[in-house]
């Protein structure tokens, strides 16, 4: 292994271990939302984008309908479109349909973080391999533990969703527009939570918060 790759492997492993813990949480939440072990594992293998997966099972667990749950997941998955736009110029065009599957926060961050252009591809690939492995192992363990231990609330797992979403949100707030979107969405949710069916307030608040912030920017 050459000198340039060693720090990449070290960083990728550190990220992957953390993602493994997130994966355990996801697996346990997924089965608490009445997904089967196989369904939880299929999501981590084939959707492979943590925020969307957490959103899906959170809305399902709260009793929200499937359309609201899927819409929430895809709305968060749209970030990956932007990531793909940014990394595609760093990676060889060849094999892009396979690489596309691994375009997530972690792989994009690691690829963009390399100064030498010869390290873009190794950083992307090594991070993808480490994170994919740990995320899926974590999911399987979490789902198995979730199935055997019963009520996830006893273990405080219902606080995992909000904590994950907060961790994702904080670095995204870069200016006034994001702050406005955050506050408008929070208020809309508070007002509509008692009167609308589960899952609907989230979509409505995303639309209201996003639109208010976009209009105020002009």
């Amino acid at each position, binding site marked *: 292994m050459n000198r340039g790759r060693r720090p990449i492997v070290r960083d990728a492993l550190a990220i992957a271990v*953390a993602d493994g*813990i*997130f994966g355990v949480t996801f697996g346990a939440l997924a089965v608490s939302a*009445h997904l089967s072990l196989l*369904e939880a594992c*299929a*999501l981590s293998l*084939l*959707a492979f*984008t943590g925020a*969307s997966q957490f*959103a*899906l099972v*959170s*809305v399902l667990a709260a009793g929200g309908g*499937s359309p609201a749950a*899927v819409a*929430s997941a*895809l*709305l*968060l*998955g*749209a970030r*990956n*479109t*932007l*990531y*793909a*736009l940014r990394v*595609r110029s760093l990676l060889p065009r060849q094999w892009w*349909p396979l690489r*596309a*599957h691994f*375009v997530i926060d972690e792989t994009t961050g690691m690829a963009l973080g390399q100064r030498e252009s010869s390290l873009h591809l190794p950083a992307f690939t090594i991070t993808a391999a480490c994170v994919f492995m740990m995320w899926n192992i974590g999911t399987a363990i979490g789902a198995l533990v979730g199935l055997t231990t019963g009520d996830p*609330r*006893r273990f*405080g797992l*219902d*606080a*995992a969703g*909000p*904590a994950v979403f*907060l*961790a994702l*949100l*904080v670095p995204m707030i870069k200016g006034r*527009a994001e702050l406005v*979107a955050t506050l408008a*969405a929070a208020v809309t949710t508070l007002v509509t*939570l*008692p*009167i609308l069916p589960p899952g609907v307030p*989230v979509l409505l*608040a*995303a*639309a209201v*918060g*996003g639109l208010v*912030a*976009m209009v105020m920017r002009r």
Partner: protein
Amino acid sequence: MTWVVVGVTCAGCYALKALGFLVPERVMERPVVGSAVRLLPVALLSSLIVSQSIGGAGGVRLDARLLGLAVAGLLLALRVPLALTLVAAVAATALLRLAIGI
């Protein structure tokens, strides 16, 4: 039924990633598209935080989750690693629930 949900989600998530390799760059450079893709997830996450931390059967239910969220916020502000933050938030919630049953 849930297999359909899982399948649609997986296909949709992959399609969104692949889209980034296919669209011309100027589509995303349009200000409306760019700010929508940036601001909608922010609003969605904010709403998910509120609804997942105080939502419950019949609308609103205040319980130990709020302590978990507060712990997560504090540790994130202190720049504690994410995995540790998650574990602490879950543990705080479980302990408060064990102690006072909410």
